[in-house]
């Protein structure tokens, strides 16, 4: 069974039809890269998957369970949305770290707040928070920032901030982690460290959807590539196939812009 199954997603903003009949699926442990030119709807698709936008129609299934059916779920309460979106994690282009919290606090905050809902919270408050701190520290170790755990975001480089944002998303143990152009806001010399972290997650079989303009990275790390143009999926398939031997004219045209980038 596919871990994620997206069926016939449609989304318009006013008159603008942004997503048209988007359907795809992915397996547990797969990495899917979404590529496409600016304005093709990649961010909007990720936002629909993360419940930041509500699709006009279509369904989203996780492990076979329908978690969104636009036809019936028009007016989800905040609580319903919250429970369902926790299947997903999201890493933003602009990091969106919380500036008044240290790296470690950024990673642990949401999980600590969630722990308050546990029945045994009052009795085991201290132990629970210590356990979450330990998880956060372990995550920071994995992304190579344990020594910076007490730094505030403004004391970290862009690449370091984005790595903290990745750890923050991982702390909630999402089934599927989404990235929206995770390196686009970074200086070129800082993209490598972030891509390396994502690559190591792929090696550990984290299920991921990555919107990216890094074609070489998509080809090497993703199992599957989806090329979008003007709100439709034009081509999708094995990453090597799509990037090295695109079938569709539009894909070829799009990729030709990147051929000079040492792929």
């Amino acid at each position, binding site marked *: 069974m596919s871990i994620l199954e997206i069926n016939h997603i449609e989304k318009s903003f006013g008159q603008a039809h942004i997503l048209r009949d988007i359907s795809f699926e992915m397996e547990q442990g797969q990495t899917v890269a979404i590529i496409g030119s600016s304005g093709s709807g990649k961010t909007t698709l990720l936002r629909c998957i993360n*419940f*930041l936008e509500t699709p006009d129609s279509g369904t989203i299934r996780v492990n076979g369970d329908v978690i969104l059916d636009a036809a019936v779920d028009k007016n989800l309460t905040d609580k319903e949305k*919250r429970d369902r979106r926790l299947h997903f994690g999201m890493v933003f282009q602009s990091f969106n770290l*919380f*500036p008044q919290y240290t790296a470690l606090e950024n990673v642990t*905050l*949401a999980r600590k707040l969630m722990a308050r809902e546990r029945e045994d919270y009052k009795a085991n408050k201290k132990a629970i928070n210590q356990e979450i701190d330990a998880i956060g520290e372990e995550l920071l170790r994995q992304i190579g920032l344990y020594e910076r755990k007490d730094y505030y*975001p403004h004391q970290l480089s862009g690449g370091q901030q984005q790595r903290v944002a990745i750890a923050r998303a991982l702390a909630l143990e999402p089934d599927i982690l989404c990235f929206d152009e995770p390196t686009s806001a970074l200086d070129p010399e800082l993209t490598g460290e972030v891509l390396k972290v994502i690559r190591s997650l792929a090696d550990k079989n984290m299920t991921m959807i990555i919107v990216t303009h890094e074609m070489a990275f998509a080809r090497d790390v993703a199992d599957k590539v989806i090329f979008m143009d003007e709100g439709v999926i034009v081509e999708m398939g094995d990453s090597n196939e799509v990037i090295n031997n695109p079938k569709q004219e539009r894909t070829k045209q799009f990729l030709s812009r990147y051929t000079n980038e040492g792929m």
Partner: protein
Amino acid sequence: MSQIITQFPIVFEALNVGFLQTLKLFIITLVGAIPLGLVICLGSMSKIKPLKAITKVFVWIIRGTPLMIQLLIVYYFPGLALNNPVWGGGEEGRFLAASVSFIINYACYFSEIYRGGIQSIPVGQDEAGMVLGMTKSQTFFKVKLLQMVKKIVPPMSNEVITLVKDTSLSRIIALQEIIWAGQAFLKGSQGISGAIWPLFFTGIYYLIFSGILTVLFAKLEKKLDFFR
């Protein structure tokens, strides 16, 4: 000079009494205007169009006219135009009228500062909270509130220090604040008349008071300096 020295104890005591009234007006204005400003701010950002429009016009009128006129209207209008002198004639009535005018006036200024603070928080903070499964109120209290406070402390500090001096406007309805107290010795009071120095001396009170506030606000700003 020797005259000033003999006058000083009398003047000092009278000015202290006046300053107490100034201080009371200052404090009650903050206590009233800080929360009322939040209410007005929410009104001016409301999704309900008429409420938003009414609030914005109200804020425009209050901020667009002198506080002195507002004081005169609030104090005299009920008695003269409506034949219903709600405030009574005494010092207590004048204080109430002044308080109402100042609270409304400052609440409108504060509401705009709050609005700036709220709108300065990038939507990315809300979205980050959402995708992390935080509730709206958790995102507000745990993430956005402190960022807003940091944003509004410098403009609030300006307004509060302006308020110190603005309290003297209540002299226009004869509230017995410190300027009134100083001026009394010009006209003649407690055997002292034609003395201008008490009026100058009130300046010292303002300087010390606003100086203390400046230091306190600077401390607060420094406390919030740990993040950006």
